[in-house]
């Protein structure tokens, strides 16, 4: 290339550089603005919840059952416990099944059967939650003859499975094939490799998927309406109608009493705090097992 051309190149490089710096600045600004836009509703929701709810959160609210209509005071202790029970049942069924399905899809599902399952899971993911509730109603409530925490758990499990299955699959597919080959090369059988190597390598991602599904169903009201049904009193039997926070919030919010409105706000605040707390707790415990230098 002749010298003159290089000079031109240098000159234009300078102008390009100014232009590029400008574009770069704009792009960074746009990205930062997007972050603010995305975070703003979250902060607004949380802030408003605290503003409206914190005043009604007190010891009685956390330890007592609801008072009869018209009386003030009382609390949502039974709903908190009920929610915990329903979520526990839902997770007990939904997490292993979802992870199992995800493992199948990632490790053995590169075939027609896998595609059918994948499609089914995606459709199930999009089914309105009230319909899941109706399904659990006809499967469990109608056959057992009464509403129950168990029926609510089944409804939530059905909602958790497709989300967990698909995220587990994606996380397992992110594990490089070289890692699987390393295990095969050591004479480790395929199922053992899947269980002890692939799944273990993907653990943190799988946990994220599980917690995402958990947090989503924890706030579901519709599938519990005619499965867990709700209860104004303490109930220690899993086969009886059981109170749940979202249900309690729902019925209090549509009630005509100011005190119940305030308690609905408090309930919503407690629900969010509990979800955030349980997700963080699981992350902390799972994170403790992780090693330094693990990406």
């Amino acid at each position, binding site marked *: 290339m002749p010298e003159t051309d290089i000079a031109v190149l240098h000159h234009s490089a300078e102008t390009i550089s100014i232009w590029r710096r400008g574009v770069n600045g704009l792009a960074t600004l746009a990205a930062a603005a997007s972050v603010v836009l995305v975070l703003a509703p979250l902060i607004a929701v949380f802030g408003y919840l605290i503003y409206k709810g914190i005043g009604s959160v007190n010891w009685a609210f956390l330890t007592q059952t609801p008072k009869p209509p018209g009386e003030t005071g009382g609390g949502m202790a039974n709903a908190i416990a009920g929610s915990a029970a329903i979520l526990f049942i839902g997770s007990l069924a939904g997490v292993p099944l979802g992870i199992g399905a995800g493992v199948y899809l990632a490790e053995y599902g590169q075939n027609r059967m896998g595609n059918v399952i994948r499609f089914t899971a995606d459709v199930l993911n999009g089914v309105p939650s009230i319909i899941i509730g109706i399904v659990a109603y006809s499967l469990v409530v109608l056959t057992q003859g009464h509403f129950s925490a168990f029926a609510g758990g089944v409804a939530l499990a059905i909602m958790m499975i497709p989300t967990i299955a698909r995220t587990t699959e994606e996380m397992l597919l992110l594990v490089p094939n070289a890692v699987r080959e390393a*295990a095969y090369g*050591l004479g480790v059988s395929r199922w053992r490799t899947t269980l002890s190597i692939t799944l273990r*390598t993907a653990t943190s991602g799988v946990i994220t998927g599980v917690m995402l599904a958990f947090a989503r169903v924890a706030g579901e009201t519709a599938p519990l309406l005619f499965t867990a049904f709700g209860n104004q009193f303490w109930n220690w039997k899993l086969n009886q109608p059981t109170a749940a926070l979202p249900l309690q919030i729902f019925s209090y919010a549509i009630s005509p009493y100011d005190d119940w409105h305030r308690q609905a706000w408090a309930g919503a605040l407690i629900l969010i705090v509990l979800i955030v707390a349980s997700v963080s707790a699981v992350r902390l415990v799972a994170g403790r097992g992780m090693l330094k230098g693990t990406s």
Partner: protein
Amino acid sequence: MGVSIKVDKLNAWYGKTQALYDITMEAPANRATAIIGPSGCGKSTFVRCLNRMHETVPDARASGHVEIGSMNVYNGTSAVQIRRHIGMVFQKPNPFPTMTIYDNVAAGLKLNGFHNRARLDEIVERSLKMSALWDEVKDSLRKKSGASLSGGQQQRLCIARALAVEPTVLLMDEPCSALDPISTGKIEELIFQLKEHFTIVIVTHNMQQASRVAEFTGFFLLGRLIEFDKTAKIFTTPSDKRTEDYITGRFG
């Protein structure tokens, strides 16, 4: 002790594409045998057929006769069982990222149900010493992840992992291609020492490496074994014109 590898009329396919044609050769015990040839000539496929890793690829299959010591690779015994006796080191270092250095080395034994603590400690130390990594990691065995090591260290960790299961044969598929010259030098030195205990088959793109570490060399081209002989002979007076063209850099 190492054992010899006898390969007779080995053919391999990926789906309908044939990758290896009637490979017949013998790698003697306690020697290093280098496999050279241009990209896509079937070198990797060949070593992966020796421990039946080839068939882990969907639609891949192989036929023929491979004998490793007294073990008949393609007759009766399960692939998993075969692989327990044959160590393999891959092109890119592939330590288990969520495991400690110690667990990486012990993985082959632990995952196959061997849990004797004292024996494991002993084996891990011996394997890491053999792979010349012990001094660099002995203080962080249980603290650091295998993935936190440098590339060259990771590859030596993978060698230690392969040695821990006490194989008779060590297959190395371009073990240095992702490493810098210093790490490469360390691993070549290692191959020299390991020959005392194992039979080594090493795939390499680097002809100098083949001439440095291997007593025997096989030249592959388009899925066929063109020439197999003493390394010195291959690199000085090859019998086949194609071998000569390749080693003098006329193609490939």
